[in-house]
């Protein structure tokens, strides 16, 4: 059972998502920032949007800790695979 909670304002989340998407699009244009900074900002915005969907639409914010653990477990594994593969090209 979800913990008792006030229902989130889904329309407000939708507005946040739309604003973040617009911000990402803005970044895609030629801005006077380095490519690395642009990449970092884009990733940050994407992760923020993903968290909004996961926490509010998928209700993870209101679920018990053990369900949240279940949802989170694959992420470190995926990152391990990613970094191992990338390490082939670091040095």
């Amino acid at each position, binding site marked *: *059972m979800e913990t008792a909670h006030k*229902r989130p304002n*889904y*329309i407000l*989340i*939708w507005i946040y*998502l*739309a604003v973040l*998407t617009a911000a*990402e*699009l803005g*970044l*895609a244009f030629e801005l006077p920032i380095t490519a690395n900074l*642009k*990449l970092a900002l*884009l*990733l940050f*915005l*994407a992760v923020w*949007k*993903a968290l909004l*969907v*996961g926490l*509010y*639409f*998928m209700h993870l914010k209101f*679920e*018990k800790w*053990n*369900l949240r653990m*279940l*949802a989170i*477990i*694959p*992420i470190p*594994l*995926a990152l391990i*695979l*990613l970094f191992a*593969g*990338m390490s*082939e*090209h670091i040095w």
Partner: protein
Amino acid sequence: MSQAMAGAMQPPFPAERGIEVYNKKLGMWIFLASEVMFFAALIGSYVILRFGATGAWAKPGIVLSIQITAFNTFLLICSSVSMVKAYAAIQDGYQDKMKFWLLMTILGGACFVGIQVYEYIHLVEHGFLPSGVREGSHLAELVENGTLPAATMGLYGSTFFTMTGFHGFHVTCGVISMLYLYLFKALPGKYSPQDFGGIEVVGLYWHFVDLVWIILFTIVYLV
């Protein structure tokens, strides 16, 4: 949801508490965990290949249309909102609102797939293939005049079509599932505020598909 067979006698004590999330929902979260690993393999490969590529990667927007895809992203996000509104509606007992929002979600998802298919046809016509750039095509000219880097176009095509293709496949499966629920469960009024697990579970799947797209849109189209 009880695990007892219909009509079988119950033991004198309730079963172990478990995770206190009903089976269908727990099963869907577990399935989504496996889907994370599946997309991690495909997306991770893209990142590893692009990170390790010796040549430059094509600049965003030249091969792919950012404008159309931005609209498509917005569309998918809207369909996620309509999905969660359908869920909220049946939670409160509003059958008609639930049916309306579910239908909106199905239409949004179907439009997303339609636009993706249109984009694919457009790309193939211009010469973009999973194997790279087709000889003699419009994109081949861009490679010739240096607008596009010859060395990495093969990887670009391979990774683009595989990742977005499988995402599109997942969206299609979602649309079909929702259509099935709409026609055979929602319309005949089989959902109620006490029993709307199907909506919640298909909703989780749909939000997940949206979440993957949020990541994909950024790292494939914008970076």
